[in-house]
């Protein structure tokens, strides 16, 4: 039984990889990530890439909803901004180095985040949810306009470029995977670090009790806007990766559907925790795929053309949202925690 982890100085106590299960867990996860593409099918890699991109975006949303306590139902818009910025950059300068494009897309999305975060200075909760929802509709509407169509392709969407690193074009799923995953890991670590310092603590304080945070010298206005900027930046980065990952994009890819999916991934995983977005995204994106497998088994053969599959997937998706809220509002991370608590005491206590 593990009774405690003993440390001899304060900086050790502040560490995040404080014990061997955590350290080896991280190493194992990284090794797993690295060797996965050599064993997986193209289909699995497609899913993995999609999940990786979503994890980046959901982590950004976690900064806003999970840590700062500000609601958003419109983050699909920032995803769109990131994706379309990437497309536009390559339209103007086709040979831009992908990382530079990634950074610019991120910054542009962050700027939009600040703009549409402005209502958060005056309203909270539901009002903010509807304000961000409105922002989503408005941004997509702008993208669809004819005067932007040269860069965005308008309503009909546009083809997207492949990333080219030093003359090597990333075409295969495998190659794209190795572009997405390092970005994802770095952005996850960044977020994790953010919340062990003054900056992250200030955001959490705003979530828990805003007037109390103010009295400690935390400028609510500036921190709320920064939180919006960070979360939008993460979604922008995800959007940029998305543009490199898929051959084409449509404005409606980034609508309410995506915004809600992001929130649902977060709720299912667990808000305000680093692991939450990872668990949640994997679950929410894999369940529809599993449904496909089940449907194929029932009908015997390819079931994707069946008319009942898509509505059933919608129902299942909605039921998962409601189910998590009623039965496990803290998300999968809570189940994970319970498991480890149980393990650390076993067999001496339940």
């Amino acid at each position, binding site marked *: 039984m593990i009774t405690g982890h003993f440390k001899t100085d*304060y*900086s050790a*106590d*502040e560490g995040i990889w404080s014990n061997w299960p955590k350290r080896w867990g991280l190493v194992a996860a990284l090794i797993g990530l690295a060797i996965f593409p050599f064993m997986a099918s193209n289909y699995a890699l497609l899913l993995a890439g999609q999940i990786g991109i979503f994890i980046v975006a959901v982590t950004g949303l976690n900064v806003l909803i999970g840590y700062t306590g500000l609601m958003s139902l419109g983050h699909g818009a920032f995803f769109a901004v990131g994706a379309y910025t990437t497309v536009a950059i390559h339209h103007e300068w086709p040979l831009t180095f992908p990382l530079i494009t990634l950074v610019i897309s991120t910054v542009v999305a962050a700027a939009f985040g600040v703009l549409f975060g402005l209502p958060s200075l005056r309203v909270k909760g539901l009002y903010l949810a509807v304000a961000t929802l409105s922002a989503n509709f408005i941004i997509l509407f702008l993208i669809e306009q004819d005067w932007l169509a040269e860069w965005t392709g308008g309503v009909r969407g546009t083809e997207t470029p492949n990333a080219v690193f030093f003359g090597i074009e990333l075409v295969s799923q495998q190659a794209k995977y190795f572009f997405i995953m390092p970005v994802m890991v770095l952005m996850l670590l*960044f*977020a994790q*670090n*953010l919340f*062990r*310092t*003054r*900056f*992250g*603590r*200030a955001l*959490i*304080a705003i979530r*828990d*009790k805003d*007037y*109390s*945070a*103010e*009295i*400690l*010298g*935390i*400028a*609510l206005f500036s921190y709320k806007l*920064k939180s919006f900027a960070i979360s939008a930046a993460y979604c922008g980065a995800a959007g940029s990766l998305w543009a490199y990952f898929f051959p084409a994009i449509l404005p409606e890819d980034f609508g309410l559907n995506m915004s809600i999916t992001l929130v649902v991934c977060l709720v299912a995983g667990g808000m305000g925790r680093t692991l939450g977005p990872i668990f949640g995204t994997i679950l929410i994106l894999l369940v529809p795929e599993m449904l496909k497998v089940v449907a194929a088994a029932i009908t015997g053969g390819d079931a994707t053309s069946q008319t009942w599959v898509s509505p059933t997937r919608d129902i299942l998706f909605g039921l998962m949202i409601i189910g998590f809220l009623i039965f496990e509002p803290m998300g999968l991370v809570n189940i994970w925690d319970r498991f480890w608590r149980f393990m650390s005491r076993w067999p001496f206590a339940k």
Partner: protein
Amino acid sequence: MLSVTQASLAFGGIKALDDVSFTAASGEITAIIGPNGAGKTSLFNIISGFYKPQQGRILFDEQDITHLRADKRAELGIARTFQNIALFRGMSVLENIKLGGHTRLSTGFWSAGFFYGEARREEARLRAEIERDVIDFLELDHIRKAPVAALPYGLQKRVELGRALAMQPKVLLLDEPVAGMNREETEDMARFILDIQARWGTTILLVEHDMGMVMDISNQVVVLNFGRQIALGTPDQVQANPAVIEAYLGTSATTEATATEEPA
């Protein structure tokens, strides 16, 4: 150190504060007393910046802070606790206290995200400082990792005091620090308050209903009633003031004490 001049605050037609003026001298304890609804917490709220007084000024270190935002005042060195404890309930004691150090740290966004160099050193330094000046000082070492929500009321009040102390404030506003405490806890808290004053020379403002404690530890007492300041002076002067006796005991007591002082 901190002075309030002719401050008035009204909500619609109700005057919460009416022409209140006093000066809290540096390093002294000033108590603000008065019956319920006298405007004590409103006074704290205009000092800490939640409300802006319609009239009057608030000076801190000779600087006019009347129109400064709450967080800017905190940066200047005004800390406070709340009547209904306003801790971050989801966090541990240590995390709550660390938040008090917010204004004294300088880690920016980028170094925070990469957690290199200065950010790392700064966190370690803050931790050591908190351990010494707050956790040891307020005898919180046995609960530093406990979640705040699970602590008993008295300890929560002490953690909130600790969070304010971590700001290393020049002025400390304590809103009913011993409300709802038993004799022993009250004495502990009074001891902490006096220790803070002795150790750091902090100017302390105190709203409290426990008259025994107020009269024991404060250097100056401000008495409010229905938003008006009815007395100001040392504990002895205030205790002898007929207007104060009237406010606390009703009119009949006044008429018996001094028939001439009756208000129109």
